[in-house]
């Protein structure tokens, strides 16, 4: 099980190394093989999550380590899906995706990876539905953030085609992320109502999720009604992900509430 996780990390690192080697030797194949290494890493990650699920007897989504590993899996999966849908015009984004995956998995290794039994509040099928939806949403919003960060620095005229594709990716990943975030908040509310008799308690995690949701809703409205595209929209996505990160990490460590176990 841990071997699969390490293999996943090695493949993501290899995706970076392949691109670097390709640049050094001026090879055309560098991005294609980088994407292939990402796919191999994703498959190993899938095996790791599946094996952990089997051994724990429950979905591996109950603590920081498990949710981070799942988020990286969703992030890489989202990139590969968008790459496929965009006719491989986003091949060049593979090493950047790999870099984020390597850094995030490296960060995950600082958290306790032991399989622990679930506290009573988490013993529900809603754990799988709610957390997987939210973390996949975060993965899509991370992709939007990555695209936005690169977009801001991509200024050369010869990169116009890339900028166009990237801009589309930033917006589409934002839409997917926002849709999943909406579903995640809703499934969380339904779960809370079935566990505590209240679908909304203004718990810090709930409040910050709502802040994030409203921010992205405003960003989408600004784009659709005020024409905030390209650099302006990229800026919105950069700040939006800061909110996502605070909702994910900041609330857990700085504010206490109903989600303290997460």
């Amino acid at each position, binding site marked *: 099980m841990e071997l699969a996780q390490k293999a996943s990390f090695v493949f993501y690192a290899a995706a970076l190394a392949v691109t670097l080697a390709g640049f050094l030797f001026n090879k055309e194949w560098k991005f294609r093989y980088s994407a292939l290494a990402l796919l191999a890493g994703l498959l190993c990650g899938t095996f790791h999550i599946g094996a952990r699920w089997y051994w724990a007897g429950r979905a591996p989504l109950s603590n920081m380590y498990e949710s981070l590993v799942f988020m990286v899996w969703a992030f890489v999966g989202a990139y590969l899906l968008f790459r496929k849908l965009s006719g491989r015009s986003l091949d060049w984004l593979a090493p950047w995706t790999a870099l984020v995956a390597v850094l995030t998995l490296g960060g995950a290794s600082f958290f306790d990876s032991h399989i622990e039994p679930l506290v*009573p*509040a988490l013993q529900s099928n809603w754990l799988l539905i709610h957390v997987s939806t939210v973390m996949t949403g975060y993965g899509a919003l991370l992709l939007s953030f990555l695209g936005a960060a690169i977009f801001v620095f991509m200024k050369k005229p010869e990169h116009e085609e890339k900028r166009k594709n990237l801009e589309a990716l930033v917006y*589409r990943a934002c*839409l*997917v992320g926002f849709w999943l975030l909406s579903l995640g908040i809703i499934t969380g509310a339904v779960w809370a109502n079935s566990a505590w*008799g209240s679908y909304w308690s203004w718990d810090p995690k709930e409040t910050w999720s709502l802040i994030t949701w409203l921010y992205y809703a405003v960003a989408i*409205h600004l784009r659709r009604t005020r024409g905030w595209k390209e650099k302006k929209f990229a800026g919105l996505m950069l700040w939006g992900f800061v909110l996502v990160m605070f909702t994910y990490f900041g*609330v857990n460590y700085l504010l206490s509430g109903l989600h303290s176990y997460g």
Partner: protein
Amino acid sequence: MMKLINTLSSVRLFFILSALMLAAFLIGGVIPQGEAPEAYQEMFGRIGGGWLMNLRLNNVFSSYWFLALMAGGALNITACTVKQWKVLKLRPGVFLSHLGVLLMFLGGGVQGIFSVRGTLALETGQTKGEFAGNDGTSVPMPFEVSLKNFQVRYWDQEKHFIHAYKKCGEPGHDGDDLLESVEVEPGKDAPFKAAGAGLTVLKFYPNFHLGESGPVTMDESRQNPALAVKLPGSKAVKPGYLFANYPEAHELRDAAGIRYVYEYNPGMIKQFESRLAFLEGGVEKFEKLINVNSPAKYKGYRLYQSGYDPKNPRFSSIQISRDPSVLFIYAGFAALMIGLTWAFWKEMK
């Protein structure tokens, strides 16, 4: 009329209200909510704490200014939905998602006016026909609830550890060094391997109390866990006692100067559950076992297992709610998700 609808449905108003809502959420998300006045005075000083409470920033989400802001949001989205009715065929997804949010606002209003919520505190064998509402009032129920049994289940059994310390030999340092820690069982010798360390655990007292006839356990609650132990070579007739809650107050050393400290580990809770009987006019209608994530429903009321008292194994805390807003909220959730799916799918294509 159309002019009013146009003003209320304007995107500019949406942006203004959203900015204000974000600010309100941020305030409510950063400042701890619902604390005692003294806590705010400690955090922000006497004047700052006073201002904070005057502006209701200590209870943002139930303050009048926040409710007014929510009402503004509801008006904005109502006007927007009415306006979009005309272009329903062109943008059904946008219409539905706005309708979903509107239903949620409506649900929030219904909850504020009609929902009843509170806590039912019961001990085993006790029957109650009313509960303590969240506003402090006593709320009668159209039935009675009796707690037949309450049980806490653990993933693993409770464990007892004894740590052996010996005096630090370094000059100028009068503290103790940890020699060895072992898990022990009542009725058996502690399996110490370190030379000189050793004792026999005679008995476990879950809630130690010194009665007239000597040490007894008050009940099965783990309020004051203690172990009766016998040190090797000790000629004392009475055993020594180790207290998990007071490791320093009752020091126990053997002839070799080794000090023993008791640690009680209650085990990780798997589930806590109450067996409830529902009665009407003293006649039992049915029985239901509830636990966290599995409530009981009766006559529009839902009863949720919410807490227990580690010091009182007979006590169970049950949340009660009767909330007619759930229908609106869930309809809003459905409309929002269908609307977003419809709108985004068109856009993604």
